[in-house]
């Protein structure tokens, strides 16, 4: 249904997510680093992005989200973290530091992620 770009350096995570996203008829593209992600953004023009916080650098995902927003990208971004804490974190599309629309701690239930995707794509 929608074009979704998944940026995460862990191939197991991207495998699992792609699996169920495709099951839901989404068109999925995978990128394994921030640099690859930026390239894929231009080439693939996704409707929504799923970003991991920690890739090559500890805050790669967050930095990438900041860059995207500054460049004027308004697409919905869902952030995933495997070591961080979500509670107490302030995030919002317009937030300076963490400009994402949703934040999940891994492991995220597939149906929770899918629900959120549907919700964000509607707006």
């Amino acid at each position, binding site marked *: 249904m929608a074009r979704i770009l998944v940026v995460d350096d862990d191939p197991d995570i991207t495998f699992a997510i792609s699996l*169920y996203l495709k099951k839901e008829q989404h068109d999925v593209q995978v990128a394994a680093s921030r640099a690859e992600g930026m390239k894929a953004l231009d080439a693939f023009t996704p409707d929504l992005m799923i970003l991991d916080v920690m890739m090559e650098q500890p805050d790669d995902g967050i930095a990438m989200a900041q860059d995207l927003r500054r460049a004027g990208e308004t697409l919905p971004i869902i952030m995933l973290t495997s070591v961080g804490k979500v509670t107490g974190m302030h995030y919002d599309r317009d937030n300076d530091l963490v400009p994402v629309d949703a934040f999940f701690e891994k492991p995220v239930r597939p149906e929770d992620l899918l629900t959120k995707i549907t919700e964000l794509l509607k707006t």
Partner: protein
Amino acid sequence: MNHEPGPPLPGEHVKRRSLVEQELVNSLDWLISLRWLAGAGVLGAVGVATLALGVPLPAAALSAVGVGILAYNSALWWQLGRLRRERPGGIPAFETFARAQIGLDWAAMTVLIALSGGAESPAIIFFLFHITIASLLLPHDHGFLYVSIAPAMVAAVAVLEYAGVLPHVAIIQPARYDDPLFVSAILVFFTAACYVMAYCCMSIAKRLRRRERELGGLYDGVRDVTSTLEITDVLDRIVEAAARVLGCRAAAIRLIDSVRSQVEFAASWGLSETYRGEVPDEYAKSTLDQDTLREGVVHVEDVASDARVWHPELVQDEGIASMLSVSIAGRTGPIGVLRAYGAPGHRFTGEDAAYLQAVAAHGAAAIENAKAYKLLADLDRDKSQFLRITTHELRSPVRVTESLLMTLADGYAGPLGSDQAELLHRAQRRLTSLHALVDDLLDLAAGKAQMARIERRQIDLRAAVADAVERFQSVARDKGISLTVEQPDEALTVFCDPADVERIVVNLISNAVKYTTKGGVTVTLGRDADGVRLEVADTGIGIPADALPHLFREFYRAGNAKATEESGTGLGLSIVKLLLERYSGRISVTSEEGLGTTFAVTIPSPQATDT
């Protein structure tokens, strides 16, 4: 401006002279005290001499002098007090004051002598007291000149009496004051005594001053060593102090690395950068350093003719003619050398060597302290880094595996047979336990390692509780128990790291829900005298009395807890306790087996300014 006397403020670099200044003030004080006795003594002596012994003295005039002495002593006493309080010009002001005192005294004494027999007066001897005191206390630039005043005054009196200008008071019969031989003899011996006395006292004083300076230098050194851990600053000060005390051209500390291959200047004073650059840094090439380490002290009396000096011309170009070198002994062996450099004409003495060795000991202490501190700092950094890496390396695989299994379990890779589902769920349960254990262990380790950068914020406890309750609401529902919150309308803010607060609240509520099968869990928020209070009360299995003392121990799980619930790390409460300790919080528990448990947590919190 008023200065408080006493120990220097921490960190303030005390100038050397304050020790010397203190000495001077004490001496002047002592002089004034003596003078009370002197004045009284004059009066007493006059009384005894005229009344008891019948010596024909001009009692009235002499008493007037005695009273005069007491009078000007009072003025001096008051002036010293004023000088002490206001400290107008530091040492020079005190020195002028001292000279004034001594001048007044000598004037008084001259009058006394004129009134008590002139060249025949036994009181002449008292001048020597004064010369002693002046030579010991005062600086010696014009020392001998000043000392000449006394014999000059006495000579003047004697000559004037001889010439008949001054009336002679006859205290012995027959009078001798007009006998040129007698008078000359007295004057010559007296003058000689004055100069000899002055010379002896000045020499002693010089040695005492030198000791004072050394002590001052050592005192400063000790203070520096214990005050700052910037090792370079400490060594710089040590080296400068050494050079000043010894009165030599330069001083330096050279440190040797542990394998005895390199030696380099760790601090220097008075040496040019070119010179320091030229000196070889290979230990093997530096004969002087090697000898110093071996023998402890090395004195190079003449740079030009000593074979140990590696490049005499360069050394002489630097203006150095002699060197004194002592080894700096660390705990496990020598770690370097402390070297003093003398300009042409300077001579190092055995005392200098002894002093340098004392200074070297300070240097050693400072260096070892700094090394130990650096080692600890490195260790701490390594530990933090290890923990950071471990955290990621442990957490990540667990979570990724959970994600993979979730995908499978939720049917996204195709439908599962019942056996497949069962196996999968068992694996997932174990993985969930592992997830919890890893998280708890890492929390505990991070808390203990103090590496966690605690970022405090103003947090409303009600929000934290609301989040946690929401998290466990579905679990509670599934179990058929209630989970409710009672809280006031006012905000209950604490100044803590939100992650810590979340952890505390979640652990307590999670426990309560886990060990309750009927009834429910009530979370109560409020304030008490000590701060913000959180109570988690359940109607669960309760805690046996014998388990209560061990509750907060790591990995401890009470017997009935283990029986009820398989999963549980036993770390939850120890983590809560650890986190609370960060904020001076407290936790208490009341429980009855079979009926329920209540945990009460108090976190100190600023009062009444909550909005």
